[in-house]
Each structure stands twice: as C-alpha cells, then as structure tokens.
C-alpha cells in the first residue's frame, strides 16, 4: 500500500505562472507536481494561488466519511487547518485514482477507503509541505530544516508567510523522493475529536447535491418498466394510455429487452406514464420459484455432503469427536434475501457533449465499472467518457454492482434516443425494493461438542447459499478452488482458536440477482459464530465473555489479543453481568475487514408483548481512528443496519416476483427502535482499517443472545418475527 515516490519520470508543468501547486500520483505511480495545466496529472492535492487547499477524494461519499477523512490526512501532513482545506471528488481514472487494494480499479467497498489511502494521502500531503518549505527556504536564504508550516503559515525564525506566497515557487521545485511523514506523536488532526465532518452543513440545509438533484438543461426523465420477475423479456408495448399524460414524450424497448423505457419531461409525468404503459412480456425464461422453495433447497443442502470442504478438515474425525462429546449443541439457521434500500433511490444522468463525449452524473461507487461498460456501449475510448461523482444517498453495497446495472440501464435508455437531450434515469422506491439486487439467502447448520469441562472438542459447520462473486469480474478476487470466500468469511478464519473445526460449503442455484450487502458474508457468518459461541458457553455453564476469552488467550497473536481487547472493553463499559432489574444482556464479538468490534445489547420486556432494545454498548479496534467521531457514527449506523434488518426485514418471492414493494412492507429501523448506543474506540498505533462494515456483524447476534438470556427463545430464522419475537 505504498506508492513510488521517486522522481523518475517527473513531469514539470508548462504554465508555472498560474501558481497552482498540484501534487499527486501520475499514471506511472510516481508522485508529481505541476502547475495548473497539470489537471491532466490527476493529483491528490491542489493548492490555488490564494492558498486554498483542495483534497482530491478518490472515494465516493455515501455517508461513511472519506470526504472528511481524506482531507484530514492531507491537512495533517501539509500543516493546514480543517477550515483551510476543501474537497473535490476525483474524476474517473483507474490508473491514478484506483483503490490500491483493488488493482487498476477505482472504487469504494470492503471498508477500504481510509485503509488503502492512508499512506498514499499522507505522502501526497507531506510532499506538498516539503515543496512549500523548500521554496520558502530558498527565498529566505535559510535551511529548510528551520522552516515549518503551522495552520497554513510558513515560518522560519521571525519570518512568516501564508502558504499562498510560495505556491508558485514550490510548483517549480523537485518533488521530494521520500517526503518525511509526521510522527504520529505530532498528529494534530488525525485522532482529534474536535474535527467535524466537512459535509455536515450542506446536508442540514438542503444545499448538498446528490445525483437525484441533477437538472441539466433540456433533460428528459426516464423510468424503466421491468418484468415482475427477473428474466422476463419485453416484446412490445402499448402506450396509448400514457399519451394522455401531460409531459409524456415516448417509450422504447431497451436494446437488451430487459424492460421498456418511458421518457417524460419531468419525474411525475414519467411515474404516471409508466403506470399506464401496457407491455407484452415473454416470461418463459423468468424465475418462477417461491422463496419458501428456495429456502427448502438451501436447508436441504445443509443435510447433504457439502460441495466444498472449505478448510480441508478431516470431517469424519471432527464428527467423531463431537459424537463422543459430553454435550452437543446443534442448531440450524436461515437468513432471507434482503434489500439494501439506500435512502436515495438509484438514479443517474447521462449526456453527450457537442464533441461527442459522454458524461455520466452519478453517485458513483465504482466509477471504473460504468467507465468500462460505456466504452463498449458507446464505442468510445476511455478519455471520451467522464464520470462526475456526486454525493450518494447511501449505498450499503447497492451502488457497486459488478455489471454496473443502473448505469448500463441509463446508457441503454440513452442510446435508443437521438441523444440530443440528456437522460436522467430515475428509480422509484418500488423499483428499488422489487427489481434490485439482494443479500443472498443463506442457511447454516452448526454442531459443537463440549467435553466435561465445557471446552470445545469439535465444531462442524455447513453453509449453503448463492455465491455473490461467481460469474462476476470479481470472481478471481474471492473464489479459490471453487470456494467463494465471501460465503464463508468469518468462520474458519476467525481469530478464535477453535480446535477441530470442519467447514463445508454448498453453492445453491441462482434464485435472483445477489450482491454484497453491508459486511457481505459476515452478515450471516458472524451471527452463527456468535450465537453458537453463546449457546456453547451457556451449555458449559460458563460466562459468555470468559468462555470467548479462553479461545482468544494467545497474547502473542495480535489477532487474538485485539479481538479479546474489544470484548473486554465492551463488557467493562456495559457493566457486563450487572444489567438493571428486568433486563438481560447479550454479547458478540467479530472481526471483519481488518477491524474488531464487540457489542453488548441490553433488552427488557418479553417476546410476546414486545422486546425493548434499551442500550447497545460497542467497542471497536480499527487501528488509528483518523476521525474518531466518524468511527463512532459508523458503529452507530452499522449497529442500526444490522439490528433493523433482523427485527423485521426480509424479501420474499412468490412465483419469482418480489412480494414487498416499499417501506410499508420493507419496514426500516425507526428512531425508537434502539434507545441508546454507546461507542468506545480502542487506542491504537496500528494502520487504520475499515469502519463502514465491521459495526454490523456483532449487532444481530448480540441482540439474539440477549433475547435468549431474557426469554430462553432461540432465534434460528430471520427476521426475528419468524421466531415469534415482537419489539416495542
């Protein structure tokens, strides 16, 4: 995760007089500086002649905080305040703005925005600082070692100047080969609780611009009428009723026949005209199964020989150890399809310039996806396609489809027009719930054997469900020897030192389009691991915290000690073991995306008249917390996302069609559902790891364990309403 900072290939800009210092990575990976026409250098740091610093943010902002975190890192190294730095989203360029963990691919996901950018953005900020210092030192005739930049002021002895004064001179200087990074003990902004989000004010006063807010001159709004179930083909349509709608323009079958695009002058006209459109469908290749049938297929697979022996264990030996154990706990689990349902319904706007360039306005999570797809659709070289990244109203994984689904849909809706008018594709909430991509349904069956002392002697674990990665361009990242790691992550690779684990996986047939959903496989694996650990502890008559710690006892293994660390901190902060009268506590701890999170959920009430979630206490170890309050917010949000869905969220199919349609029947978490959340961050000097997803996996099992302790009810199927649990 480091980049080459050598001066090799350094390209000097031609128009130094324009006095803009730009530092960033060039296509060959080297840091480079140039003047304003260095825009083609695609930099990370831009300093205008007036001293305004702009961090070029290569990750999109869906609320998870890179529009604050990446400027924080630059400002830290450069020596400016948070008020002196702005942000801009990077253009689409997979050579320059790639996610360093994804190869030559620009995109956000897997809780990597800060983790992959950490050294890259520090180096970019530090290089800019050294160039400004060297320029000042030359001008003042002093040694650079005596020059500093503090709060945007360059100083040496009694000489001071704002950075603006030396931007032009600095842009003429060599880029330092190895810029000195600040020592963490010198950090002013990283880890500083007083640093606030850069996007708070505009999101509270209506000024924030999301893709949904794009209104290009002369644009049309397009909506797609899609088949009731995936795989239907549009053969023809009758729009005579739609023509009665004022503002309706026309309709066209998409080139791939996946639906019919309706064009209108505005969104309301498009909504009405689409409702009135009659379509002739060929449904012969469409999905026809019910979700009950899909569930039965998954659960049956758990009882058969697994397709893959994931950890190459001797399953017969593990089974024999469990058969001979003093106590055996066996439990099956089912996890339904789930929608992501980000608040901003999917949309994007596409236009063609007079020069024949294509511009996409999008809350683009993975710009490289649509950028590549558009080269094919429009038969254009990459430089003729621009992607303007807008603020995104949530994603939770939905905007990062391997096939760039909605951006391709917009392009198809655009190419069937004469391209004279920009096309804004808008999905409604019903489109989002009914025609989207889903967290795949999964089943687990686990058998755990305990000896007379209450120690685990064997753990047999079967998983069955639809692979997310197979058949996508990301297959090679995640699928090895047939096993899609995202189906089983968090089980055999858990830091727990569990003896005798056998893990099997069976891929089940495609039911619908599936996709990563906040924390991916950990949404179900973390649940099963932590509910089984709790059941085992209770069966052994041991305290659930002490029991878990006994499998995290190797202090020489940082993976175990960090996981133990969050477990202990959460227990301490929640006053574990001493709930208020009438309440019960449940705990869970899970590592995902390089970070460790433990949560204690405290509940009251009873399953019949209603469980009340009184409090969630969370401890997280994510290495250095660049923006601690953003980390805290991500834990709060991750907990809400995890708990909200297991309370009452599921997508079901009847005859292949999604039964739910909008928030009334895909009910989101509401404000009163969790009374309080308290987050604690483990101090750390380790490099930062992710926070967008790791808060989610422990939340649901901690809740289930609390309900089990309170009521004895064992929750095996989701949502929890399926187990007879109601909430107040």
């Amino acid at each position, binding site marked *: 995760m480091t980049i080459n900072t050598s001066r090799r290939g350094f390209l000097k800009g031609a128009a130094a007089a324009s006095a803009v210092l730009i530092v960033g990575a060039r296509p060959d990976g080297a840091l480079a500086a140039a003047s304003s026409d260095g825009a083609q250098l695609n930099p990370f740091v831009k300093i205008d002649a007036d001293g305004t610093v702009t961090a070029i943010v290569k990750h999109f*902002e*869906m*609320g*998870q*905080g890179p529009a604050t975190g990446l400027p924080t890192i630059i400002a830290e190294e450069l020596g400016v305040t948070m008020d002196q730095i702005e942000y801009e989203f990077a253009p689409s360029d997979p050579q320059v703005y790639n996610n360093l963990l994804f190869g030559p691919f620009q995109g956000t996901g897997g809780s990597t925005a800060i983790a992959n950018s950490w050294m890259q953005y520090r180096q970019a900020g530090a290089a800019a600082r050294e160039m400004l210092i060297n320029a000042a030192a030359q001008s003042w005739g002093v040694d650079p070692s005596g020059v500093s930049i503090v709060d945007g002021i360059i100083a040496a002895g009694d000489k001071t100047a704002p950075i603006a004064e030396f931007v032009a001179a600095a842009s003429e200087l060599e880029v330092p080969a190895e810029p000195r990074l600040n020592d963490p003990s010198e950090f002013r902004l990283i880890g500083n609780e007083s640093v*606030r*989000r850069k*996007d*708070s*004010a*505009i*999101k*509270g*006063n*209506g*000024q*924030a*611009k*999301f893709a*949904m*807010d794009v*209104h290009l001159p002369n644009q049309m*709004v397009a909506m797609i009428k899609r088949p009731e179930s995936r795989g239907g083909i549009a053969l023809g349509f009758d729009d005579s009723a739609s023509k009665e709608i*004022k503002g309706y323009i026309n309709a066209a079958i998409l080139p791939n026949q996946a639906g019919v695009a309706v064009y209108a002058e*505005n*969104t*309301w006209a498009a909504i009405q005209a689409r409702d009135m459109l009659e379509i002739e469908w060929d449904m012969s290749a469409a999905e026809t199964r019910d979700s009950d049938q899909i569930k039965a297929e998954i659960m049956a697979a758990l009882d058969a020989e697994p397709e893959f022996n994931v950890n190459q264990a001797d399953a017969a030996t593990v089974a024999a150890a469990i058969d001979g154990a003093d106590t055996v706990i066996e439990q099956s689990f089912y996890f339904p399809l789930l929608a992501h*349902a*980000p*608040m*901003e*319904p999917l949309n994007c706007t596409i236009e063609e310039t007079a020069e024949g360039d294509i511009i996409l306005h999008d809350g683009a999570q993975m710009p490289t996806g649509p950028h590549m797809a558009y080269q094919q659709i429009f038969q254009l070289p990459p430089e003729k396609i621009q992607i303007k990244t807008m*603020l995104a*109203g*949530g*994603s*939770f994984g939905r905007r990062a489809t391997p096939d760039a689904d909605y951006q391709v849909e917009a392009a198809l809706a655009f190419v069937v027009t004469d391209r004279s008018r920009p096309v804004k594709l808008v999905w*409604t*909430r*019903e489109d989002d719930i009914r025609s989207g991509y889903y967290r795949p349904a999964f089943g687990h069956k686990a058998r755990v054997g305990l000896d007379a002392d209450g120690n685990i002697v064997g753990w047999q674990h079967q998983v069955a469900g639809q692979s997310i990665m197979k058949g996508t361009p990301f297959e090679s990242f995640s699928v090895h020897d047939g096993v899609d790691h995202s189906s089983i992550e968090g089980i055999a690779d858990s830091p727990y030192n569990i003896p005798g684990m056998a893990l099997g996986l069976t891929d089940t047939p495609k039911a619908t389009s599936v996709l990563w959903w906040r924390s991916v496989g950990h949404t179900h694996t973390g649940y099963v691991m932590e509910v089984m650990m709790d059941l085992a502890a209770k069966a052994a008559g041991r305290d659930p915290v002490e029991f878990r710690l006994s499998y995290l006892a190797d202090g020489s293994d940082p993976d175990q000690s960090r996981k133990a660390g969050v477990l202990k901190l959460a227990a301490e902060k929640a006053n574990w073991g001493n709930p208020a009268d009438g309440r019960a506590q449940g705990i869970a701890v899970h590592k995902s995306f390089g970070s460790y999170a433990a949560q204690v959920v405290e509940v009251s009430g009873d399953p019949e008249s209603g469980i009340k979630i009184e409090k969630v206490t969370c401890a997280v170890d994510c290495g250095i917390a660049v923006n601690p*309050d*953003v980390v805290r*917010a991500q834990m*709060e*949000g991750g907990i*809400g*996302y995890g708990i*909200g869905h297991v309370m009452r969220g599921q997508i079901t199919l009847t005859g292949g069609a999604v039964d739910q349609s*909008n*928030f*009334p029947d895909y009910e*989101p*978490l*509401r*404000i*009163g*559902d*969790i*009374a*309080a959340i308290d987050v604690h961050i483990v101090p750390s000097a380790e490099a930062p790891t992710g926070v967008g997803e790791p808060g989610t996996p422990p939340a649901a099992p901690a809740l289930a364990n609390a309900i089990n302790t309170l009521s004895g009810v064992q929750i095996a199927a989701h949502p929890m309403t399926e187990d007879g649990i109601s909430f107040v």
Partner: protein
Amino acid sequence: MALSLKLNGETHTVDAEPGTPLLWVIRDELKLTGTKFGCGVASCGACTVHVNGEPVRSCQTYVEDLEDAEITTIEAIGDDKIGAAVQQAWVELDVVQCGYCQSGQVMSAVGLLSENPKPSAEEIDEYMWGNACRCATYQRIRAGVQRASEILEA
C-alpha cells in the same frame, strides 16, 4: 394549468395538473432540490416541508389544495429561529451521514420544537418516528433535537 404557490415567502406561478404532488413541483419545476424523494408514499419523511408551519409529506400533498397556503422548504427554514437552532445543532453533533433524509429530519425536528420546546427522548421518538434514516443516525437526531432545544432556551 397555471397555479399560484406561496413558497419561502415568494409567490410562484407554476404549471401543474391537479393531483400533482407538491414534491415534484418543488423539485422539478422550482428546482429546489433540498426536499427529497424517498418513497412517494409518505412512509419515509424525506420530502417533509411545512405548510402553514406544520410539517407535511410533500409527496402526498397535492398542488390544488395549497391555494393561500404558506409553504416553507429546507432552503428557507434556517431563516426561522427554530430552524437555525436545529441546523446549528445538526452541525455541532455531526448528525448526518449520507444526508439524503436529513432535510426531512430537520423539517420534522423544527415542527416538533415549535409545538414542544423541551421534548423528552420518548416524545422525540414518537414525533420523529415517520422520518426514516437508512444510515441509522437516530441517536444523533435525538441528541440534535435536544441540543437545539438547549440553544433555543439559552
């Protein structure tokens, strides 16, 4: 048909058919995009505006019913003392994440504080129930309302 709407203190003549939700007139015709489309069925609150000082869901409020009504959107709520306090509290506490629902959250919070200057946590939960936030910023929304109440009291 031409309709007259009084919005944010100005009178606008808009071209909209009866049955058109106020939301789409605000967003598509007046290009005031702070008011958001989230569900279209009044179950998420992202489209909340004030009509005569009361929060309403603009996706289920129809243009023909608004003659003589005073409409206020997120773009102008900061001119109001309570609106300014809520926006200040939202920034102090960094309530937002993705932010898409927050215009509606702010409009509802102003409605709550207008009728109940010092709401309890339970009263906040009850009043704000209809404003969904998929990022689950609820804890901070609750704290934000309480902080705004303090600012107004000071």
